């Protein structure tokens, strides 16, 4: 026996996160659309993470790839997205894969909606995910996304 048999399965789960930021929809949209602005907040935990590559082509049909590793496991974590729909200052839709090493752990469809709220912006983040082969997400994707949206909020104050 040289290879372990992989148990194949798909677990579906959806989560929704809402945030209100004091900045305008145009400012919040920019934090997703501009590679430099996005790099300020879209990354793993600062003291546990090293980035390897980052590429971004923000247009419908364009791709984004971000690869990094956690210091503790030295295994590449790869985010690979395809932009499916973009309406400036209003919404962004992308599908993405996550790979740990060469194992695809999930495929997800993400919708970001931005709505004016007073002087600020209400952000609605909806993620419809398929988790693969027993990868036990146990809510970690949602927690990780909440942390990212907190980092986004801090980056808007710069």
């Amino acid at each position: 026996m040289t290879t372990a048999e992989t148990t194949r399965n798909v677990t579906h789960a959806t989560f929704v996160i809402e945030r209100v930021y004091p900045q305008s929809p145009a400012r919040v949209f920019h934090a997703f659309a501009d590679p430099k602005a996005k790099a300020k907040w879209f990354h793993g935990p600062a003291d546990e993470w090293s980035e390897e590559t980052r590429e971004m082509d923000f247009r419908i049909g364009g791709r984004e790839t971000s690869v990094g590793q956690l210091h503790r496991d030295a295994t590449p974590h790869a985010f690979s997205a395809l932009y499916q729909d973009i309406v400036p200052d209003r919404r962004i839709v992308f599908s993405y894969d996550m790979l740990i090493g060469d194992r695809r752990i999930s495929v997800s469809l993400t919708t970001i909606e931005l709505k004016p709220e007073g002087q600020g912006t209400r952000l609605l983040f909806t993620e419809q995910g398929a988790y693969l082969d027993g990868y036990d997400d146990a809510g970690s994707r949602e927690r990780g996304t909440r942390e990212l949206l907190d980092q986004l909020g801090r980056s808007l104050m710069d």
Partner: protein
Amino acid sequence: MSDHSVAHGTFVIEKEFAHPVAKVFGAWADPKKKSKWFGDPNNPAQVFEFKPGGRESSSGTIPGGPTFNFDVTYQDIVPDNRILYSYDMHMDGKKISVSLASIEFTATPKGTKMKMTEYGLYLDGLDNMAQRKAGTISLIDALGGYLDKA
């Protein structure tokens, strides 16, 4: 004027076929076989790359009605086991939906159980989940008819 609305929905369709898994999977994986039951038979897919990261593209016009474009990106494929793909639908050039479909194939004593889970977002009030689910059930029925004859 568009209201930029997004309606999210998920539906699941399960169907059992009296055919082996390899045959049911093959009806999705082989462009000639898929063209027999999926979409407009006179207008088969112009692009068909059945591999992770590959694309599929086809279009069809309802007589006297709108033209639809269907554009797929395959995200994950495990032969005879599962297919995950995301797709966009356009109607007369307007994007009406973005979806992520998972199709799982399981061998049963009778043949194959196929489970389709589809995440969708329906844009700007131009489509809705009930309509898409009904359309998908018709497709799966067409697949069943094709498998019985093939």
